[in-house]
């Protein structure tokens, strides 16, 4: 059994071959990790270098001008449109997404829950241009009736006010863009919320039921409170997606730079849609890149905030134990 003896000795001694392999692999993974930082830094640097001259050369104030032409340009209208479409989209997608997640985790029989889970995940896999085309060809013509209804009964809110008293028959509006966006961010919110709700300890749910809670009271007492941070971060990640979404919004929004809260009036624009729609013809790409920089910073901040919420919720739970 001499072979075993050699094998034993070999495995005990630090073999130079395996040590080298380890070092190589460690270096490779380090490079891969470092590459992410370099990449993000390079993108930021590229944006800043290209954007700065454009912002400096702008004869008007880049942040307060609504107009976008080769002589005077500013992001006031597109930034406003970006924020408004994203917020409206979330106002629709968060209740629906949380509802879907609650149904899947708390109410549905297992087979339906699994199926519904797959379907919501598949919604996330649909390319955004498909959502845009669907919105343009299918949704827009059907928005006319909805818009009239909202203007008639909810015009007093201001949001759905129709100042001209006659809505467009082809409503390329902030509201239409928000609807398409809400469908696009729904899977993110539903999927993350689903995981968050699923992680609630069953003994907490039993505790609520044993106190005489109905199913909905049990959800309110034992499921929603510990899931709050998770749902907030799901919302933030959805917001990040909604802010940056380009092609689907470019297809259904009016491409009219305007700061107006009347979301049913044709027009409106977002930073991303503006870049997509004007980049080809633009002689000077600088201003567009500058607006891209603003969007980059905005989404970065939103995503960091989402991480921060998750992190803080985690430490709170640990410190409580």
């Amino acid at each position, binding site marked *: 059994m001499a072979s075993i003896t050699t094998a034993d000795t070999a495995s005990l001694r630090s073999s130079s071959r395996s040590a080298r392999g380890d070092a190589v692999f460690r270096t490779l993974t380090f490079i891969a990790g470092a590459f992410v930082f370099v990449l993000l830094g390079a993108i930021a640097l590229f944006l800043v270098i290209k954007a700065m001259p454009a912002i400096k050369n702008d004869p008007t104030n880049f942040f307060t001008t609504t107009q976008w032409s080769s002589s005077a340009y500013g992001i006031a209208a597109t930034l406003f449109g970006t924020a408004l479409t994203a917020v409206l989209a979330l106002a629709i997608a968060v209740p629906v997404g949380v509802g879907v997640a609650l149904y899947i985790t708390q109410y549905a*029989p*297992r087979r339906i829950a699994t199926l519904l889970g797959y379907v919501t995940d598949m919604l996330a896999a649909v390319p955004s241009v498909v959502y845009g085309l669907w919105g343009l060809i299918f949704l827009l013509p059907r928005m006319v009736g909805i818009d009239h209804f909202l203007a008639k009964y909810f015009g007093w809110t201001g949001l759905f006010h129709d100042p001209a008293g006659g809505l467009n028959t082809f409503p390329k509006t902030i509201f239409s863009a928000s609807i398409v966006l809400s469908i696009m961010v729904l899977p993110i919110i539903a999927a993350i919320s689903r995981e968050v709700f699923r992680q609630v*300890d069953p*003994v*907490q749910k*039993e*505790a*609520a*039921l*044993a*106190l*005489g*809670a*109905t199913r909905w*009271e049990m959800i309110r*007492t*034992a499921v929603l*409170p*510990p899931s*709050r941070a998770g749902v907030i971060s799901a919302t933030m990640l959805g917001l990040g997606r909604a802010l940056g979404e380009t092609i689907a919004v470019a297809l259904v929004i009016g491409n009219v730079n305007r700061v107006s809260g009347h979301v049913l009036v044709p027009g409106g624009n977002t930073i991303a849609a503006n870049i997509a729609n004007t980049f080809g013809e633009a002689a000077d790409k600088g201003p567009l890149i500058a607006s891209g920089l603003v969007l980059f910073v905005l989404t970065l901040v939103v995503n960091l905030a989402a991480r921060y919420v998750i992190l803080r919720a985690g430490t709170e*739970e640990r410190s*409580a*134990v």
Partner: protein
Amino acid sequence: MAKRIETVDLSCYYGSMQAVEGVSLTVEPKSVTAFIGPSGCGKSTFLRALNRMHEVIPNARIEGTVLLDDEDIYGPGIEAAAVRRTIGMVFQKPNPFPTMSIYDNVAAGLKLNGIRKKSELDGAVERSLRGANLWDEVKSRLNKPGMGLSGGQQQRLCIARAIAVEPQVLLMDEPCSALDPISTLAIEDLINELKDRYTIVIVTHNMQQAARVSDVTAFFTLKGPGEPGRLIEVDATQKIFTNPSEKRTEDYITGRFG
């Protein structure tokens, strides 16, 4: 305040698997009844059938009757939530609501019952925490998270939460199995005090505990793996532990289990 529980030929199922077969048993008010028996004998399942917590598990169901002072808790028009409000439960693992303070944990059941008035809640929270022998330890930090307490304190917090809604019966599913001996003693003392006001049923793996706290002991066992659990014998605790009528009970009590 305390009611009698009576089961008639009660069987419990998980889907097609029968866990408990044909148990008929009466639990007298203001007494402590202990369920003992080997693991898998169905004593916890049977306990959960007494306040309709059994049916929370998908496909779980029962056959037979459970009477609370002659009212069928599985009868038509009876709501499971209302039954559970009347028959409270304390679980094996302390399970205070993690995001709630000590105060809110105790008040949770009252709020579910629509009680919102601060003075009323304050009174009930103090009364329940005193009832659970926890008031003196937590009165200065009622707004701190319930999860910050020790395991034994958390379990007493859960007892306070359960008695805050003033149930008729308190079911305890191995309430001390996750606790150290000192905390266990505190809970046992508490059970002794609580039986003046409540009907108490406790499932325990610890035979000394059954002997210490209960007035009546019910012994459950099963013939073999996969077989449903059955009630073998129920009698005064004193008698079960000194002179049981059934050979199987004696074998289990004396450690000659087979």
